[in-house]
Structure formats: structure tokens, C-alpha cells
């Protein structure tokens, strides 16, 4: 199956508002997940579009003309909560019955600290507000805890500080700026976002990239996953004051980034994936160097990370901390490692097996959604990524690395999906009657997962917040765009 779809805009079924709502809730009740749900402004009014991933792996999509008031489905299907808030912020449509209709990005001169907050009442209840500037070298966001003593009843996360207006900008600025902007939608996921964008452009002009290019893209994406997962395990280790792994992994992560820099000169893989293929080729000498450096970094990672699973001091802090049950995870539709740690089998590489992941297999693990699970799943994925890279680079087919990208199909749409290191990346693009991009929607996996962090903190100790936060390690700018 392909992890992208494309077609004429007219192929998107246009429904009556009530039929739309009914169909959407029907699909969601059957276990479909929302890939993207957004509004587009037309002269004749606002239209809503929804793209769903059905349990069978099929992608379903339909649209409707929006009214100024729509019934909110969030109370029944919490996975919609941010999508509805986003549509509401962009268009002014009111979703009646939404439990917390705050803006998502506070675009209109407000900041998150002026948003509305759930408040727990009681004599000994206290509220802790943190951010936007918080203790680490980290992006800004606002967190508000309702606590009784050390115990957290509720955590509300309000972001928007990082909002740069990328989605509007990519269609208004010079086309040359589009790729670098999308690469920095979440700068630690440059490869993931660039690949998704490239799939969109290739779908819109029906180009099939060479096997060589797709193997190289795969290697870069798995390097990105390796670097971030290793870094996260180090950071988790640091948060429970187990310093050997924290220090070792901090260095090994850098080494993986340096391997990415061997490919393209940039540690974050900027300008490696371009529409039509990849910008840089590799020769035998470079492959040999990448392989040998990867082997030694991997060996170091094995020795550093194995320590974690044997140390009681680590396990005692990881286990049963910040549990997100399978039931909650399914309702919120957590994606990526966070979803898999709660027991959802949600790897797009496995669902679509699109090139170069044709042989990708992963066994579902029995994990219970605690910090340990989110750490351990990363370890499993590190091992897998290493094998994938080795496999691709050792049998790299010959071929053109870049193909010409022609003009885009007119009045068309395209949706592309990529399993980035945080999970499901989804971009949607519309073209107009001249074949120019008229609409672009980016969804970073963090958009699904932030609420998972809030759930992990329910009835947890406030002192466990840094550890829980690190176990998700979500993107602020990917959410805020």
C-alpha cells in the first residue's frame, strides 16, 4: 500500500453538514483515526475536510460546508479536541459542547497565560504555573497543575508561543523557501517533514523516485530516529540521576548526528531530501565510513543503554510512573512510540510497508504505558533502525538520485504520511487551477500526543513531571507551527 494519496479535488465527497457529522462519528466509532481535520476558506464559505485512517489501513476522506455553529464531537471522541479547537481559532466556527474551546496557538494577540483554565476547588488545593520560559534548554510552553500537596489532579498544557505562521507562509513566500520552512516545522524532525513534503510533490506530478534515492531517504530517517531515541534515553537517565548512561548517550547522540552530517554536511539532515530524490549521493568509500562509524556508535549505545535495564535505582523510578492506559491512549489516539508504549499497534512503516520498508515487521510488545514502556520501546526501535540502515546501505541499488519534478496536477489534492521518530507525520496539500499550491496543512505527531502527557500526570507526583515530559519528548514548534 502507498503511504500517500492524491486525486482531483472533486473526488472528495461533499456532504451535507449533518451527514458529515454522522459519517465522521460513525467512522470514529469503528476505530478510525483522524489523520487530518481542517478548514479551508473559499469565497462561498468555509469547508471542512477530514482524512481518516481506517483500521483496515485504508484512507477515507470527505468534506462539508461548515455552519457558524457545529456540534462538537470531542466529548465522544477526544482525539478530535485539538482539531476542533484549531478550526475554531482559524475560522470562528463554534463547536457547541467542546469542553475547553481555548485557542490552540493564541494567534490574535493573546498568550496562553491568558487562556481559560480548569480549576479544582478546595481549601488545600494549590495551582502551579510553569513557563513559557522554563528551566532547561528547551522550547517554551505553559503548564498549569492543579495539586493537592504533591499529588497532581490535573495538568493543562497551553502552547502557542512558538507559532511562526508556517502554514500561511509556505503558500505566500517564494517557492524556494518552502522546503527549508517545512524542514524547520520541527527542526529535530527535518528528515521526517522533508520526506513527507517530498512525497506530496512527487504525488502531485506523478514521479516515482528511484530505489537508490528511497534507500538513502530511509537511511537518513532511521538515523534521525536513532539519534533522537538515544538522546532521549540519555535524558531520561539524567532525570532519574543515573549519570553514566546520561553522559554516554549525550555523546553517542552527537555521533549519530555527525553521521548524518557525513551524508549532507548538516547534522540535522537539512537539504538532504529534496522533491524528486536526494541532494547528495554516496560512494563506496563514504558507505564504508558511515558503516564503520555506525557500528562503533551502536556498540557504544548497547553498552550504555543496557545498564538502564539492570539498575534497580532506574527501574524503580521508570516503572509505574506516568501510566497512560491503552483505553486512554486509544481515545486520544496517541501515535508513535508513545502510542506503542501503551499497546497500540500504530507503526505506519508496518501498516503501509511502502518503499523502502517492504519487509518491515515489528512484534507488538506487552507494555503498560508507563515511563519504562516509553523508554523500552525506544530501545527496541534503536535496534531495529540500526539493522535497517545496515541492510539498505549494504545493498544500495544503482540509479538516479534525483528526478525532475514537473508541474503539479491542477485542482488536485495530495496527502502523505511518514512515521517520524515521534510518530505519524501528515501533510495535506491542495493545488489551484494553475497547478500552484493553494493550501498546505502540516500535522506533527506531537499534535496528538501532548494530551497523553497530561493524562500521564493524573494522580502522579508533581516531581515526576520532568521525567514524564522527557518520556514523551514532544515538539513545541511542531505543534505551534
Amino acid at each position: 500500500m502507498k503511504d500517500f494519496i492524491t486525486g482531483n479535488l472533486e473526488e472528495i465527497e461533499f456532504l451535507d453538514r449533518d451527514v458529515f457529522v454522522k459519517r465522521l462519528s460513525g467512522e470514529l466509532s469503528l476505530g478510525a483515526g483522524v489523520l487530518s481535520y481542517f478548514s479551508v476558506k473559499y469565497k462561498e464559505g468555509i469547508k471542512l475536510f477530514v482524512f481518516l485512517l481506517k483500521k483496515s489501513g485504508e484512507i477515507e476522506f470527505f468534506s462539508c460546508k461548515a455552519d457558524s455553529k457545529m456540534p462538537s464531537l470531542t466529548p465522544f471522541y477526544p482525539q478530535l479536541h485539538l482539531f476542533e479547537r484549531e478550526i475554531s481559532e482559524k475560522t470562528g466556527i463554534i463547536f457547541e459542547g467542546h469542553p475547553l474551546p481555548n485557542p490552540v496557538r493564541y494567534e490574535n494577540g493573546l498568550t496562553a497565560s491568558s487562556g481559560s483554565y480548569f480549576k479544582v476547588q478546595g481549601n488545600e488545593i494549590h495551582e502551579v504555573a510553569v513557563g513559557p520560559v522554563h528551566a532547561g534548554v528547551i522550547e517554551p510552553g505553559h503548564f498549569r497543575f492543579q495539586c493537592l500537596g504533591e499529588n497532581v489532579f490535573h495538568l493543562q498544557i497551553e502552547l502557542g508561543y512558538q507559532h511562526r505562521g508556517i502554514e500561511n507562509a509556505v503558500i505566500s513566500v517564494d517557492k524556494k523557501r518552502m522546503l527549508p520552512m517545512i524542514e524547520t516545522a520541527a527542526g529535530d524532525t527535518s528528515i521526517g517533514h522533508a520526506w513527507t513534503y517530498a512525497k506530496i510533490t512527487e504525488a502531485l506530478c506523478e514521479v516515482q523516485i528511484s530505489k537508490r534515492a528511497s534507500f538513502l531517504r530511509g537511511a537518513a530517517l532511521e538515523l534521525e530516529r536513532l539519534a533522537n531515541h538515544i538522546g532521549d534515553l540519555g535524558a531520561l537517565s539524567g532525570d532519574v540521576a543515573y549519570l553514566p548512561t546520561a553522559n554516554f548517550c549525550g555523546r553517542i547522540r552527537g555521533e549519530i548526528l555527525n553521521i548524518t552530517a557525513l551524508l549532507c554536511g548538516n547534522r540535522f539532515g537539512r537539504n538532504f531530501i529534496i522533491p524528486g530524490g536526494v541532494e547528495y549521493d554516496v560512494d563506496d568509500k563514504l558507505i564504508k565510513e558511515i558503516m564503520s562509524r555506525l557500528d562503533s556508535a551502536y556498540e557504544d549505545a548497547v553498552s550504555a543503554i543496557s545498564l538502564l535495564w539492570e539498575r534497580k535505582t532506574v527501574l524503580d523510578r521508570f516503572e509505574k510512573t506516568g501510566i497512560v492506559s491503552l483505553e486512554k491512549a486509544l481515545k486520544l489516539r496517541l501515535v508513535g512510540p508513545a502510542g506503542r508504549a501503551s499497546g497500540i499497534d500504530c507503526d505506519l512503516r508496518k501498516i503501509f510497508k511502502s518503499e523502502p520498508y517492504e519487509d518491515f515487521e515489528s512484534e507488538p510488545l506487552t507494555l503498560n504505558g508507563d515511563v519504562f514502556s516509553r523508554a523500552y520501546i525506544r530501545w527496541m526501535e534503536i535496534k531495529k533502525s540500526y539493522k535497517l540502515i545496515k541492510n539498505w546501505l549494504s545493498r544500495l541499488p544503482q540509479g538516479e538520485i534525483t528526478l525532475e519534478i514537473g508541474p503539479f496536477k491542477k485542482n488536485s489534492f495530495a496527502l502523505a504520511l511518514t512515521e517520524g521518530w515521534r510518530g505519524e507525520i501528515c501533510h495535506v496539500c491542495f493545488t489551484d487551477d494553475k497547478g500552484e499550491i493553494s493550501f498546505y496543512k502540516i500535522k506533527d505527531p506531537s499534535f496528538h500526543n501532548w494530551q497523553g502527557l497530561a493524562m500521564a500526570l493524573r494522580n502522579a507526583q508533581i516531581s515526576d513531571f520532568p521525567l514524564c515530559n522527557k518520556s514523551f519528548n514532544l515538539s513545541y514548534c511542531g505543534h505551534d507551527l
Partner: protein
Amino acid sequence: MIKEILARIKQGYRTLPFPFEKIKLSERYKGYPKLDFSNLKESEIEELLSVCPNSCIYKDAGKINLDLGNCTFCAICEKKLPQAVKFSKDWSMAFSSREDLILSQDTKKKSYVLREEIRKLFGRSLRLRQVSAGGCNACEADCNVLGTPAFDMGRFGIQFVASPRHADGILITGPVSENMYTALIKTYRAVPDPKIAIAVGACAIGGGIYRNLPKVKGISEEINIDLYIPGCPPNPITILDALLRFIGRIK
């Protein structure tokens, strides 16, 4: 405990030797550019001026300039016109003023001019509060990595601290989104005098890829930038080298 010791022996001593001059980055690394526009035909000049995704190459008073402050080192210009722009392997880039980042073909590479009062105040101890204001987490990550054993900036007395109240200055990343504009100023004001400010990465220096967008405001004029470190993101060794030049540990 024995396993930790064995792991430590296996990992080895990994801290980069100081000074860093001999460090070689990857073959494809792009550092300080060398410019030569003298043999360009009229059509090539036109191409050069339009090739940069970020419009960093422009004509001013008849002269062609490259704004290193907004440059992302993507090297698309080098690919199109290798005779005009050549990115070297020189990773040492630290600048004391915004003007120093505007390069023309006659510009000699400016080295950082040490200010004696900075050396006196912070030469042996510099505590920084990092503020990400619309940053994409790449500059942030490459600042964070300075605390790991490979770079170990702690050995030079430089450290990131949790509160502006404990800091000697702020290190800014990101193009400064509208929603972080006030928070950034407030953080700066919370740092006790005498204080410094450092801009890391193309976004912080000139807006980078995000310049001139309606939701991006740039650093307030109230904040006086003492050190500019270009890149997208700058390599960690570039950041560390610049910080050490700034406090007078490298001359």
C-alpha cells in the same frame, strides 16, 4: 558498580582536546564562505542574485553582498555558481556586530574583537540563560550538547542555568515569534546587570528562513546583542569556539 566501570572504560575519554583548531568536520560540512564575483557574466550575476532561497545574496550600491547572518549554509548558490561562492571548512565564526556579517568579495574574515570588560567580568565564569523564541529545536539541541562530555563547556566555566536570576546573560535562539516577544524581554530584564546577550543561528540574528513573516517580530531593540554566531544551526564546535573567543579564552 563494576558494570558501570567497565562501561566507562569501554566508552573511553571522549572530551575534545582544547584548543580546537585541528578539529575537522565532515567532508560535506559548509563553513565560512569565500566569495569571488569578479569573473561573473551579467546573466550569472542575475542568477546568483535570485538563487538563494533566503535572499541572502543581494546588490547594494552596485556591490554584491552575502548576508552571513541570514545564511542557512544550504550551499544552493555554490551548486549553481561554484566559481562565485565556495563554502570552506572553516567552522570558526564569531562576530561582534551585525555589520561584520555582511560579506562582499573584498571582505577579510573578521575575527572577534575581545572586549576587555567582558574578559574581566566573565573570563572565568559565564552563566547563561537560554531562551528559545520560535526556535525549531535544532539550535537548542546544539547548545544543549555543549554540556555533554564531548564538548564539556563546564571546564571553561560556562554553564546554562535554570533561571535568568542566576545568569550573566541570555542566549537567544529562534526568530522571536510574536507570542514570545514579551517573554523574551521579561527574561532579559530579569537578568541582573551587568549583562550580555548572544544571538545563535540565522533565525535569531536576522529572522533566517522566517524573516518578514507577519507572526515573527525579531529581537527587541532593548536587547543589545554582544555576540553573533551564524549557522542553521551552527555546529556545536562553532558555538563553543565563539563563546570562548567572547570571554577571551581563545584569541
